[in-house]
């Protein structure tokens, strides 16, 4: 019970985001006519140098640190430019570094509620290299263990209550049959 109360916000987030993803077409249709443009936040000069043989990821990490925007990110090269997508949950940003003139442009990306929820749902953590993401990933593992534990303990608790065994068995059997039907036919 206490684990469930502690993890209730995780369950709530996963449930609400699942509903948003299940009805993604509604949100996409609504946003399709006029996608929001990126808002320019700042433009700065970057004078730092990179270690020899630094790859794009290493360079991205260094640029983010200099901007005090450290955290999970993806990086890609677009011609000579380095484009960093900083996966900040509340304020996702695109950071473009152009080595020819040493300029760094920081732009805020649109973050409508359904996109925020979907990003939160898909958030992983172990491979980002940032401590807070690793801790998040551990809580996700805890939540997974909690779900499996709730399912098994729920079964046990139902079996312990003799008065509900019959209707419970009917509900369980109906669920299993429906699930098996979907597994075979879809």
């Amino acid at each position, binding site marked *: 019970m206490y684990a469930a109360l502690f993890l209730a916000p995780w369950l709530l987030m996963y449930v609400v985001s699942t509903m948003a993803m299940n009805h993604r077409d509604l949100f996409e249709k609504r946003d399709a006519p006029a996608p929001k443009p990126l808002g320019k936040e700042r433009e700065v000069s970057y004078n730092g140098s990179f270690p020899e043989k630094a790859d794009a990821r290493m360079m991205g990490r260094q640029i983010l640190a200099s901007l005090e925007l450290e955290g999970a990110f993806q990086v890609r090269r677009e011609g000579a430019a380095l484009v960093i997508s900083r996966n900040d*949950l509340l304020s996702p940003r695109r950071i473009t570094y152009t080595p020819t003139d040493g300029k760094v442009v920081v732009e805020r990306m649109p973050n409508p509620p359904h996109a925020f929820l979907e990003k939160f749902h898909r958030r992983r953590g172990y491979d980002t290299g940032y401590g807070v993401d690793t801790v998040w990933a551990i809580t996700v593992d805890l*939540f997974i263990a909690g779900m499996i534990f709730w399912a098994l303990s729920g079964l046990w608790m139902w079996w312990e209550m003799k008065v509900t065994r019959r209707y419970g068995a009917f509900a369980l059997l109906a669920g299993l049959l429906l699930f098996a039907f979907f597994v075979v036919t*879809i």
Partner: protein
Amino acid sequence: MKFSDLNRRAHLYLGLGLLPWFFMYGVSSIPFAHNAFFEAMDKAKNQPLWKVRLERQYDAAVPEDPEQLREFGRATLKLVGIEGTNFGAFRQGPDQVNIYSYTFFNSTQLKYFPAEKRLRVEDRRFRWDHFLTGMHARGGFEQKGWLPSAWAVVVDLFCVASLIWIGSGIYMWWSIRQSRGWGWVAIASGLVAFGLFVVLL
């Protein structure tokens, strides 16, 4: 019947009826959360993921319109004997169109190269982690046909049931006076930790 009894029954029977989904979402989250581990494990087998089923000459105009492209995908799948599956058709560039067909057990991709008038059909090797993650990620009402829509309706039902579990669980906790103190500690610490993640992630 008192409200507390109704609440407990709803909590129990909804839980039992949707237990396979609850269990599936829980177990299938493991390969999502530990993707690198499962990929490394599969890589160690040293087996190709995709196997070419057939390669043939094919000449068809590729439509620009997304709806028509989808119909093109449906017709091309039918040509190689695949019908009634979930699928998607995507342009990879001017010289390639990919059509993906997927069921819980099988995945097939068709690659059409219009310039070469060539069609390649590849089947994906079965993997348990893909089976589970495919089931986990299935949803939405974009696919035609009653079966995918029925699954999406059950996903919605599962979400509503989960909201009821949260509400009914909190009500049941509140009914047990001696556990209120530690319950508050659990709720407050969960909210604070979660709030911190929202801000810091």
